């Protein structure tokens, strides 16, 4: 409807938008360039187009140390707080389990977590943990597909009132249990 002077740039900006909506983690400029085979200039121009388009809506392109992500504009925080007051405080059991597996067994890969929990890991949970800054990717496991290793962060320690991982409550030994699935 608006500027169609460069449809291909418009398309690239949409593909970037899709990746940002679909990714569990923030995406670095390099990752985006690689996924979509873009030059640095193309990326910068497409991001500008994206920023412009987003401006008419409620999302903003947010750049952090770990890369780009889409986030709801700060001006809506009061609305969210009013309607979903529990959104910030309540941690679901699935989220806690995932976080615990990472905390106690780090470094772990995604499939390690799935193995321990016996359940497919939902992207949404990982995204929430990344969003809170409680976990990060660091290094790769040297197996097929080179899955990323997940670790907890200093922010995780802060949120749980610890100064080091040594302060994690001791884990009772469950290895001996026969009935565990």
């Amino acid at each position, binding site marked *: 409807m608006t500027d169609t002077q460069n449809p291909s740039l418009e398309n690239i900006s949409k593909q970037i938008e899709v990746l940002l909506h679909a990714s569990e983690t923030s995406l670095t400029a390099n990752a985006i360039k690689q996924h979509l085979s873009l030059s640095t200039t193309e990326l910068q121009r497409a991001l500008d187009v994206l920023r412009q388009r987003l401006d008419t809506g409620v999302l903003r392109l947010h750049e952090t140390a770990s890369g780009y992500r889409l986030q709801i504009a700060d001006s809506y*925080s009061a609305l969210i707080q009013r309607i979903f007051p529990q959104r910030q405080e309540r941690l679901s059991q699935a989220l806690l389990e995932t976080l615990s597996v990472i905390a106690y067994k780090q470094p772990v890969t995604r499939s390690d977590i799935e193995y321990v929990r016996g359940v497919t890991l939902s992207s949404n949970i990982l995204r929430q943990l990344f969003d809170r800054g409680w976990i990060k990717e660091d290094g790769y496991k040297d197996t097929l597909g080179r899955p990323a290793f997940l670790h907890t962060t200093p922010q995780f320690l802060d949120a749980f009132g610890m100064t080091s991982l040594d302060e994690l409550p001791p884990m009772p*030994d469950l290895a001996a249990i026969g009935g565990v699935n």
Partner: protein
Amino acid sequence: MPTSSSQQRMHSEYDQPDTNPVSGLSTNKATPAQDMSIRIYQTPVQQLPHDLYVPPQAFEIWLEQFAGPLDFLLYLVKKNNVDLTQMSILPITEQYLSYINELDTEYFELAGDYLLMASTLIAIKSELLLPTPAIPHDERDPKAELIERLEEYAQIKTVSQRLDNLVRLERDVFLAMVSMPSADVMNAELPSYSPTLLVDSLLKMQLQPDYQMHTVKVDTVPLADRIASISRQLSTKGAHSFYDLLDKKQGEVGIVVSFIAVLELMKRHLIGLVSTHLDSPKNTDNETVSKHVIEPLTLEWLA
């Protein structure tokens, strides 16, 4: 424990000396494979159908190929190009049993459901082989029942494939994920969480009670929470009396749920009773003893 029921069945039927059904057949090295198969199958199998033969090492893969014994039976029916409604059960039974007979004892634990089906088939087979004293009408015909089950299973298998062909969220279409506004804007101070949340969540994950257990209303005092909390206390802080383990805020329901939690943990051999008679000099204190008509039980972590 998917196989324990069929294992127990075999143990009792054949009077195995092994009294621990959980330890299973695979760990019972004293039982030679041959011996085992003779005990279960009276009829020795002469030969395997050619198109079905799979080397024994491949049984694990084979078991994964089929969703269960009904799925496998259905495969045999298809192989033989038989009309389900007019199916003659005997050849299918023969094939099934000969195949199951090849199962290495190693895989018995995986194969519990298949063995259960085998016993049903043997029952049907023996009935078919015997001269027939017309079956009384009020009794279920096991052959008809099996065919009915196969039909029903075939229906479910078909619709499950149809279900899988629907456009599905998170496979064919995807939800958009966005982040919340900046944390400092959302909340001046983020709530802080207790690290015990982490350990409790792991304990809950591993010790969750069977979904079948519905002894207590779910919400007032969740059983999983109690199991986790009692495990954590006993494993990290040594032996406690039952009374010490109670969360006094939870009232009577809390006592009942805690008791069930203790029973559940004992059933799993994770906790046990401390024998107070031998080593508890405290009990010589007359005052404490007289307060309790029954000596308080002390629980300890075993795992």
